[in-house]
């Protein structure tokens, strides 16, 4: 039997099993925290920071990613404080920078919820934006489905992008699980000055 702990989420007393995250505890308690890079059953990744919440621990306030932070006894969590709302607005605006004009309906809905202007940073976007926000869901889904990753990240900083490793892509024709999890609606590859690998899009499209 796992230990049960009590924490406070938005003034609500919540009981949770020790070892789960704030996000999971909130979901069980019916408090919704928006996410971009989280997917039930996949390893949390902590990349979009959209699930940020404010916590208070031993009198100190802190912003943490709720999908990764463990629910702890006595923790006070605020999921929608003014600070958090502001952070989410900026994050969705930033996410839209590289995603281009054709953003998914999920992102569009979130944008209107947080009063975000999706085109705010469009002029700062890379030359050829793609829909990919590099949430890494496809990569994690692929590892889970196939024990091996046919897709992965290459490059770092702003040159980071998703690539297909052709020598491992044998299963792709029958799998394509990655496409089901992509929050932008379609697994796609991305920009960057050094795409030595074929575009995931093209490869998947060719196999349809």
């Amino acid at each position, binding site marked *: 039997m796992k230990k049960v702990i009590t924490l406070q989420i938005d003034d609500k007393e919540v009981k949770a099993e020790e070892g789960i995250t704030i996000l999971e505890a909130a979901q069980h308690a019916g408090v919704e925290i928006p996410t971009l890079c989280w997917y039930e059953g996949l390893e*949390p*990744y902590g990349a979009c920071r959209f699930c*940020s919440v404010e916590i208070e621990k031993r009198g100190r306030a802190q912003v943490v*990613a709720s999908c990764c932070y463990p629910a702890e006894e006595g923790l006070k969590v605020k999921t929608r404080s003014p600070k958090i709302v*502001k952070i989410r607005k900026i994050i969705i605006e*930033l996410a839209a920078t590289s995603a281009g004009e054709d953003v998914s309906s999920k992102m569009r809905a979130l944008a209107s919820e947080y009063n975000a202007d999706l085109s705010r940073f469009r002029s*700062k976007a890379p030359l050829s934006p793609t829909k990919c926000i590099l949430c890494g869901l496809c990569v994690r889904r692929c590892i889970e489905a196939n024990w091996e990753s046919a897709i992965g990240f290459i490059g770092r900083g*702003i040159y*980071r992008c998703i690539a297909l490793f052709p020598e491992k892509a044998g299963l792709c024709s029958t799998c394509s699980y990655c496409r089901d999890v992509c929050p932008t609606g379609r697994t796609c590859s991305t920009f960057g000055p050094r795409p030595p690998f074929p575009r995931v899009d093209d490869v998947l499209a060719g196999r349809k």
Partner: protein
Amino acid sequence: MGTVKCIRSPKDLEKLREEIKSKRKPSKSSVSVCVSTGCVALDASKVKEAFIAELEKQGLKDQVEIKETGCLGFCEQGPRVTIYPEEICYFKVKPEDAPEIVSKSILEKKVVERLLYKDPATGKGVQKLEDIPFYKYQRRLLLENNAKIDPKNIEDYIALGGYSALAKVLFEMTPEQVVEEVKKSKLRGRGGGGFPTGLKWETTRNAPGEPKYVIVNCDEGDPGAFMDRSLMEGNPHSVLEGLIIGAYAIGANEGFVYVREEYPIAVENISTAIRQAEEYGLLGEDIIGSSLSLRVKVHKGAGAFVSGESSALMTAIEGKVGEPRPKYVHTAVKGLWDKPSLLNNVKTWASIPLIVLKGAEWFRSIGTQGNSGTMIFSLVGKVNNTGLVEVPMGITLRDLIFKIGGGIRDGKKFKAVQIGGPSGGFIPEQHLDIPVDYDELVKVGSMMGSGGMVVMDEDTCMVDVARYFVDFLLEESCGKCIPCREGLRVLSSILSDICAGKGKSEDIQTTEEIAETMREALLCALGRTAANPVLTSLKYFRDEWEQHIIEKRCPANVCKALIDFYINPEKCQACLLCLKECPAGAIQGDKDQVHWIDQEKCIKCGTCYEICNFQAVKKLSGEPIPPPPKGMKPIRKLKGEN
């Protein structure tokens, strides 16, 4: 090699130390040549060769010893050569100086004046290191032995008392006592965060899980920083001894030294140190005859700046891409392969033997309350003396920059100092009297970081330099988190627009919003501190931003798009120099005729500005360029000439 080689007890160690010492006559002359990266880049190896040849030639090969030692930090004055036992320090030594030094200093015991460091204040040569202003105000606990030790020879380290701290710990203290001593010393991690070291040791010791690991962080990805490299190159055994003590304290049997690949001498010297320590029974099985066993491996890291972050570094040792982990669990509890792992910076480890030998009390007496011991900075930028400086915590920035650094170059005015590496904040004149410690630096928007310290003068544009650091981090961030990757991308774009004269009035607010989000919401400390340069630039130099955005001028005359080059007709001597050198052919004029710049053709490369011998070329920003002279205008001779 001594007769005792494999040390099986503290007695053996002392016996060996006595043997080494008795073999060495303190009156014997020796020439110590720095062979660290800085001096080697200035041809120190050739200097060493020249001394070997010269001693041979003069038949002194057996009387005089040549020692290859580590860095003393005053690298811009290298190559450095010290003559013992007189301790005469020569700087900027060339191979052709070897005969004179050997004949004069070694044979006649005289000083070669011209190779001494000249005190800029008095103009006199200074013979002893501690009398040079650069060193006078330093407190060299960690770097002191760099000049006395051949890092490839463990006996040098042992002769100076090396490994007696380890022996003391193993035979006179329990692991708990060691942890307690480190806690009492109030040592804080020198890798940047300033986390209390004793507390971290205790957490790792008490964390459940086996095996446990001890790890040295010598990633040092901060451009221009080389303090960890110098220690690793110059005194690797001090780091290793600290590491072994740590292993005893927390109960680890395996250790790693993570060194960046670009540090080949450091890799070589620590590898040699590990091998020699094993040979001598100071590492491996049953260390000094105790029950402690420890194996240490060197891991060469090839990652970005972010690989120095604790969880990223451990991921890299595991053989994966070095990216920070998203878990909110300290690596002291779940680190390498999810086991309790004690990671400390090179300087932190090297402080441990000193604390054990001299006691926590003694260590706390150096520095200030809550910030004990010393910190090594790499002082660079527009100061007169650049190099590595080791100072007690709590020294003021003013003393550091003006007493040790010798003030600003060329009599210019101080503008700001950036501390803590690429994501450190800029500190302006008004805060120069704060004591340098972890907490005070954070209060003014900067941080201790790795100890990089870049001094900027009045010719630095604070918008441009903020842009520079954003652009650096843009490529060094791992790119995982949206606000870090996209935030830096947008900041970079906004900043280059402002520098290009295309800034908009809303840019300042946008910049602040993004910077705040990054500071609050990011996963690792790189992302959370990445906006420090931007935020402090805005906080202390907001007027400069406004001048760029609203008045379209760069007050420091740096941003190319906002400045124009102009030849002052009063000063021009029509020497034809700039006219010939201008790559764009933009300069008009003739012999005896005042030169002027065709603004349409000027590409603002600054060549004319650099080469004019009469300071006739000026940079103008935000003011109209006076029209070129009509027709040809004869020059006016400088005063005093006819």
